[in-house]
């Protein structure tokens, strides 16, 4: 049976792992390579690294950082932040990552999804999206709107429609990241995650808001996500992956329990 994945997320600023609340007030949490090795050996199923200031600073992703992490872990590794061109994608893959996450820049230029998918295969290209609830259901019938640039820009685009379009363009997986939940540890935004999971045939990853094992259980069982991204509750040491997985296993969620 295919197991549900737990994916720790390393948000990088100046080669340090940081964590904010609703994408603000980031605090320093440690050295990326050391944390990556710790999570990998601790039983995480995949790892994601976001160079969170690359897009805003208009610079390419920190490729040295990608290489250092890729060299030190032997589990799937996804990378996002500042990826605008096929060239950027190729550099990230050559550095040893297997998935490329596109977000703001794919909204500006959706064709990058199709190009990346053709060049490297759909399984390489992950769409990260940052939906927020909106009352403007004329523009956004699902009640969720796509935002970009760390939730700063509202795009007047329906989140579920965007997910479907990205699937047609050749995305291999979709990460649904909620700003309203990000860093709050109040639980994932289940409603929009489920709407998107129902609308597409590719796997969906819940992100933002994990505070306890029950939140992950709900992401898997209620929102029907295939994987969940966690940050704060692991980074602070409050939970280990093992402890999270033991709890989820006891709830009957299929987990990889040996590593």
């Amino acid at each position, binding site marked *: *049976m*295919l*197991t*549900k*994945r737990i994916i720790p997320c390393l948000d990088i600023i100046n080669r340090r792992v940081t964590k904010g609340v609703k994408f603000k007030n980031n605090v320093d949490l440690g050295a990326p390579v050391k944390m990556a090795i710790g999570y*990998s050996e601790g039983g995480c*199923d995949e790892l994601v690294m976001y160079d969170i200031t690359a897009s805003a600073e208009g610079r390419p992703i920190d490729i040295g950082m990608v290489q250092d992490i*890729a*060299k030190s872990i*032997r*589990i*799937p*590794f996804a990378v996002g932040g500042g990826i605008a061109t096929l060239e950027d994608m190729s550099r990230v*893959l*050559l*550095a*040893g*990552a*297997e998935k490329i996450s596109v977000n703001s820049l794919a909204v500006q230029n959706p064709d990058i999804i199709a190009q990346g998918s053709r060049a*490297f*295969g*759909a*399984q*390489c290209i992950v769409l990260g999206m940052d939906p927020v609830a909106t009352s403007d259901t004329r523009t956004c019938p699902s009640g969720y709107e796509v935002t970009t640039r760390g939730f700063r820009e509202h795009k007047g685009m329906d989140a579920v429609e965007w997910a479907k379009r990205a699937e047609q363009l050749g995305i*291999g*997986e979709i990460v649904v990241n909620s700003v309203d939940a990000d860093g709050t540890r109040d639980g994932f935004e289940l409603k929009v995650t489920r709407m998107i999971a129902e609308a597409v*045939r*590719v*796997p*969906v990853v819940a992100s933002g808001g994990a505070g306890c094992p029950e939140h992950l259980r709900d992401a898997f069982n209620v929102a*029907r996500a*295939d*994987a969940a991204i966690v940050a704060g509750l692991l980074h602070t040491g409050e939970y280990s992956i093992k402890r999270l997985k033991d709890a989820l296993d006891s709830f009957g969620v299929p987990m*990889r329990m*040996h*590593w």
Partner: protein
Amino acid sequence: MIAIVDYKAGNLTSVQLAFSAIGREAVVTSDISAITSADRVVFPGVGAAGSAMRHLTDLGLLPAIRAVAANGTPFLGICLGTQILLNHSDEDNGVETLGIIRGNTQKFKPSDPWQKVPQIGWNRIRIEKKHPLLDNIEDGSEFYFVHSYYPAPDNFGSVLCTTDYADISFASMLGCGNVAATQFHPEKSGRIGLRLLENFTRWNP
């Protein structure tokens, strides 16, 4: 020397990094003589069967792949590299592939829409047949998979492992003489995957 065949089918760095993690040097190459003279050949790949076959043809690599598969060189296919060892793939409206292992490659068609395609994540292997590459790997171990298509060999005798997904039990590892092939990614499957690669470096078929 271990040669990792480079035919523009995606991510080969992680395969090379996995060998370096077990202290073995592997070169990523599309050079015909480097491939035919290698002690061991790894044939990885992600992406689509159609473009993979086109690249192999354009690079003139088809005879070299057939030669090493036929001459007893320990040979390991991974993911797309495994699928195109069969005769035919349903991908890209049907593609004739290498035909080194008899059978074809088919698409997952789950009856339950919640069984997503591609299958992405860790799934269990059921060991159907003992093989040196599976030494010290327990039945039921989990490996990392990313794929929409799966190998369907004609002969069950070539099936080393099976895995359950999308209503079926598919061949997740094949073995035929000096050719072994995994649908999963040993290079991305943590310690257990490295063990399989280590077994490969010691294998004398």
